[in-house]
């Protein structure tokens, strides 16, 4: 007993020492921030995007949307129990995928465009083939012990999931089995983003931390703190060296991977609503953040200033996304509509 207590005390002391060491190392390189570095960049001015299309079709709250890699098709998920695949150029619905469980929280398109995945309070990730004559369920990935908050395909054979059970998981779609389980968060995982080279991913959780993971080794490489409440959304900056988070603490933050810390916070005294979703324009200059206040606010990522707003939804903006070609931005809302802007 005494020996164990002594060991625990020694280990706790070692942890505290290491934490202090990490903070000191971060401070040592903290010689400025984004706003000071961006002093020379020209202002973007007022960003006024027009509403180009309002996509009507869902009968209940929209929780998630994802662009296809062709920048034309887009899939949305609603708690009306359906996934809808849209042709965003015409506004037409291409495919409707009925869900076994209506409590969907996330949807994803595979890069090939052949498969889609969804899941939510059923704790499962269901993968369907939408290129078949009628949508066919391929796999039901069932191992998480908490809700599915986010899913992203690496290819038609591998998918990454984030769950309310605090873990993320890499699955093999050929066997339907878990390949790697990523454990380290101490709160529900809410969102994940895959790096372009697919060697790493970042996750945001209700423990207010963001983590960088090695996809193949299964290890947590870096942990980023700063938010004071749940992180609901996370996206990589286009050059892959930084990522942006959105949180219930009403702010967004950009973290740089190589300096291992936050480089700027996007917040405004007048904005007292939680951030539900984030996406970036192709140059990384503009951040589109969906808020509980029914708006999507646009931030200048370098100067930290609010430069525009997408208003029009009658309820919380739950999801946003910019297609690969960067030609527009889509917002989805609890008001059951998706809107396209550019």
């Amino acid at each position, binding site marked *: 007993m005494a020996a164990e207590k002594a060991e625990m005390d020694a280990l706790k002391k070692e942890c505290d020492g290491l934490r202090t060491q990490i903070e000191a190392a971060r401070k040592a*390189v903290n010689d400025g921030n984004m706003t000071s570095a961006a002093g020379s960049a020209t202002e973007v001015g007022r960003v006024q995007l027009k509403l180009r299309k309002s996509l009507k079709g869902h009968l209940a709250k929209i929780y998630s949307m994802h662009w296809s890699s062709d920048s034309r098709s887009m899939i949305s998920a609603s708690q009306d129990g359906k996934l809808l695949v849209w042709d965003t150029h015409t506004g037409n619905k291409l495919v409707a995928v009925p869900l076994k469980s209506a409590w969907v929280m996330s949807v994803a398109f595979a890069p090939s465009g052949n498969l889609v995945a969804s899941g939510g309070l059923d704790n499962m990730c269901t993968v369907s083939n939408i290129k078949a004559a009628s949508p066919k369920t391929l796999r039901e990935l069932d191992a998480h012990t908490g809700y599915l908050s986010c899913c992203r395909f690496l290819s038609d054979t591998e998918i990454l999931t984030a769950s309310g059970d605090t873990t993320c998981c890499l699955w093999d779609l050929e066997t339907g089995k878990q390949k790697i389980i990523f454990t380290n968060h101490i709160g529900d995982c809410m969102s994940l983003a895959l790096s372009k080279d697919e060697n790493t991913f970042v996750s945001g959780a209700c423990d207010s931390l963001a983590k960088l993971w090695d996809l193949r080794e299964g290890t947590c490489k870096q942990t980023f703190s700063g938010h004071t409440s749940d992180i609901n959304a996370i996206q990589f900056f286009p050059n892959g060296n930084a990522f942006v988070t959105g949180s219930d603490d009403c702010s967004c933050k950009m973290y740089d991977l190589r*300096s291992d810390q936050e*480089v700027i916070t996007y917040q405004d005294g007048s904005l007292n609503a939680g951030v539900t979703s984030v996406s970036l324009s192709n140059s990384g200059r503009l951040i589109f953040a969906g808020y509980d206040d029914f708006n999507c606010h646009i931030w200048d990522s370098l100067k930290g200033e609010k430069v525009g707003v997408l208003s029009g939804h009658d309820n919380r903006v739950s999801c946003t996304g910019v297609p690969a070609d960067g*030609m527009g931005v889509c917002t989805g809302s609890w008001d059951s509509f998706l809107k*396209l802007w550019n």
Partner: protein
Amino acid sequence: MTSNCNVSNMRRLVEQLKLEASVERIKVSEAAAELQQFCLQNASKDALLVGVPTGSNPFREPRSCAVV
């Protein structure tokens, strides 16, 4: 039993912190400058920044022009 779990959990936490402490860090000013450079280099190709020409807007209905 619980105390054994706690000890092994703490050991794991120490190993994790050692891993995170070993990361090589670059100066924030350097990181920020590179992020800024990326934005500026790609600004001209960013349709949401520079705007989409009316004729080639994929989300806009093609309109026919009436010659008055």
